[in-house]
């Protein structure tokens, strides 16, 4: 395969060795540098903040007295702040950073007026900060995933509008004739998010709908933040970085297109399965269940497409930090989505609803899938923006192993604990308090996993700060990989 691509490169005048093409890439990267770096910096800040709040919330579940006398650190507030910092702080900032860079790269065009994106970044993060402080002050709304007080959301929406419009303008300036699958997902995400966010704001906060419609809109929104905002960005990054680093084409255009449209068609129905057993018309829930099961199609299609692209290059996946994180994320996507489909079936949902099993599932999605892909993307993007190499492959190793083992421990522990909890809650002979006490060992395992993950996040932060501060050296020309390049038969690009 590689000899074929080398041959193609040797007869193609615009292929890799062409300095003009590379210089063009440099200009594109230059135009994205400041805005993307600012979004990355903000994302890192919220990542650390979100992890600290997560740990406090986790410890409180097995040691309720921990920080119990501080009013703004009670469980209800800490958990809410964790969720919002991670969703709107970490994941959205990281997603926007990666999306802007990918969009410019794939459109082969510069970002115009990057200053406006920096303004957007400031608005977005002031909004998130105001929202979190508002929640801590007790102004939070009691709507899950939309807890930010009403005075924070206009800032977010304005910032979002600037970013989204910029992404679409960049697409309109594209120099490439072909629209790559990552671009479909990015464009879709930038249209879908304002749709779900504004509908949810209008129907829940500004002009609240009545009765169970509220619950329906709430879960339609909360599920789609993951499904129509984070998932497309995560998949766009996976669809880009896997073939990019391997230097192979993505396996099948037909699978990509099937995966994209089936996701677009089914995902936004699926959120209703959160209301199984609730006072919602039976057919609505059944439709949600069916849509959740139909999600098997895009998931399997994406899994095959990624797997067939990677197949034969696993050694390279293992060596490249970017690929190891991204492929871990892609595998988690398959796992978490198939698990999600099964959880929407009433027979299993009967046991898993209102248990820690759901929490484990959510974290496999947001962390195992999305966050890991964002980490992998950063490992590729930052050397290009800073024109420096990662300072320490040891720190990258620490980051990978803590993050991956941490989320595996988290997921396995809470899934088992959640299933036991669900079985026992359905058994009327077991008093509720006994069920609660039985979950404690699993909650402790979650806190341990949280500490491991925190270590990884600190390692990653040190890596990034060190890389920004260290001087640029023209001598280093090879990427920082997991093993020294001399020991390798093939040199991957990063």
């Amino acid at each position, binding site marked *: 395969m590689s000899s074929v691509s080398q041959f193609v490169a040797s007869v193609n*005048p615009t*292929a*890799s060795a062409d*300095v*003009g093409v*590379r*210089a*063009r*890439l*440099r*200009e594109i*990267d230059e135009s994205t540098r400041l805005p993307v770096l600012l979004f990355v910096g903000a994302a890192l800040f919220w990542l650390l903040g979100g992890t600290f709040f997560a740990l406090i919330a986790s410890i409180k579940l097995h040691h309720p007295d921990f920080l119990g006398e501080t009013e703004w650190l009670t469980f209800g507030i800490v958990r809410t702040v964790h969720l919002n910092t991670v969703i709107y702080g970490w994941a959205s900032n990281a997603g926007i950073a990666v999306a802007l860079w990918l969009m410019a790269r794939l459109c082969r065009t510069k970002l115009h007026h990057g200053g406006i994106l920096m303004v957007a970044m400031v608005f977005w993060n002031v909004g998130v900060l105001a929202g979190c402080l508002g929640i801590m002050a007790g102004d939070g709304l009691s709507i899950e995933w939309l807890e930010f007080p009403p005075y924070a959301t206009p800032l977010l929406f304005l910032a979002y509008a600037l970013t989204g419009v910029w992404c679409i303008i960049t697409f309109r300036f594209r*120099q490439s004739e*072909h629209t*790559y*699958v*990552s671009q479909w997902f990015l464009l879709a995400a930038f249209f879908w998010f304002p749709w779900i966010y504004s509908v949810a704001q209008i129907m829940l906060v500004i002009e609240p709908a009545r009765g169970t419609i509220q619950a329906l809109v709430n879960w339609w929104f909360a599920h789609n933040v993951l499904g129509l905002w984070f998932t497309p960005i995560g998949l766009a990054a996976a669809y*880009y970085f896997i*073939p*990019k*680093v*391997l*230097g*192979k*084409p*993505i*396996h*099948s*255009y*037909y*699978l*990509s297109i099937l995966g994209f449209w089936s996701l677009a068609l089914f995902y936004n129905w699926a959120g209703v399965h959160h209301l199984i057993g609730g*006072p*919602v*018309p*039976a*057919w609505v*829930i*059944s439709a949600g*269940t069916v849509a959740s*099961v*139909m999600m*098997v*199609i895009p998931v*399997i*299609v994406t899994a*095959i497409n990624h797997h*067939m692209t990677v197949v034969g290059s696993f050694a390279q996946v293992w060596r490249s930090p970017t690929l190891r994180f991204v492929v871990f994320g892609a595998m988690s996507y398959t796992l978490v989505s198939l698990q999600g489909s099964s959880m929407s079936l*009433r027979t299993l949902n009967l046991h898993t609803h209102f248990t820690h099993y759901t929490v484990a599932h959510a974290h496999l999605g947001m962390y195992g899938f999305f966050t890991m892909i964002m980490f992998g993307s950063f490992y590729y993007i930052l*050397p290009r923006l800073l*024109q420096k*190499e990662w300072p320490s492959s040891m720190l990258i190793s620490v980051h990978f192993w803590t993050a991956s083992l941490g989320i595996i421990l988290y997921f396995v522990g809470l899934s088992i604990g959640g299933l036991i909890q669900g079985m026992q809650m359905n058994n*009327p002979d077991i*008093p509720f308090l006994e069920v609660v006490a039985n979950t404690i060992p699993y909650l402790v395992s979650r806190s341990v996993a949280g500490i491991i993950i925190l270590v990884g996040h600190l390692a990653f932060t040190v890596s990034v700060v060190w890389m920004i501060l260290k001087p640029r050296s*023209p001598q*280093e020309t*090879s*990427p920082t990989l997991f093993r020294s390049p001399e020991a390798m038969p093939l040199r991957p*690009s*990063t």
Partner: protein
Amino acid sequence: MNDDPKNPPPGPEDNDPRLEQGAVSDEGIQKIHAQLLREKEEPTEGFAPIPIFMLFLFSGVIFFAGVYIAQYSGGWDPLNYDERVGVAAVTDAPAAVDPLVLGRRLYTQQCVACHGANGQGVAGVFPPLVGTSWVVGAEERLIRVLLHGLVGEIEVLGNTYNANMPAFGPNGARWNDQQIAAVATFIRQEWGNDAPAIDPETVAEVRSATAGRTSAWTNDELEPYAN
């Protein structure tokens, strides 16, 4: 379209005044941008066909979806919250409820806090349920207590108690006849008690006989029904 390979159409970099062709091949720039020079081409797409087994998988998933939505649509009725309505097995005959199972569940939820897991109550505070005529004696008095509650002093097995028994009928927990009958039957047959079961019909009779009652009973009021 210009297809002449010797005179390619001007690329975007040719029009960019900031980009001199001399500078881009400069060695220093190449070194600084090693990250760019070593990276692979922007990704492209292959055109492998969709594997045939996917077709079977999709057919299976779609078939399942069709059957599921047909089975559990609840007749597409916006007021129907129970997906099983319309499924033959459920509508034909509601599953028979074992009063002892239902009674034990209700007792564990509502009664156990005062009367204890063994029905022994709390000495001097809450009366026991084992071996007392209040439980295994007259049906009507027991049902009246459960429906409307009991206040004031009573004597149980030689000890005097003065606590508030809450109502579980229309003025309290709003249990239906089946629930009242189940919990009454449960306490009459548990812990060595061995009195006949109480039917929901008996509860319904007492309920209609005491309709309009809004306060709890006292010992004196229940005296006529003690036997």
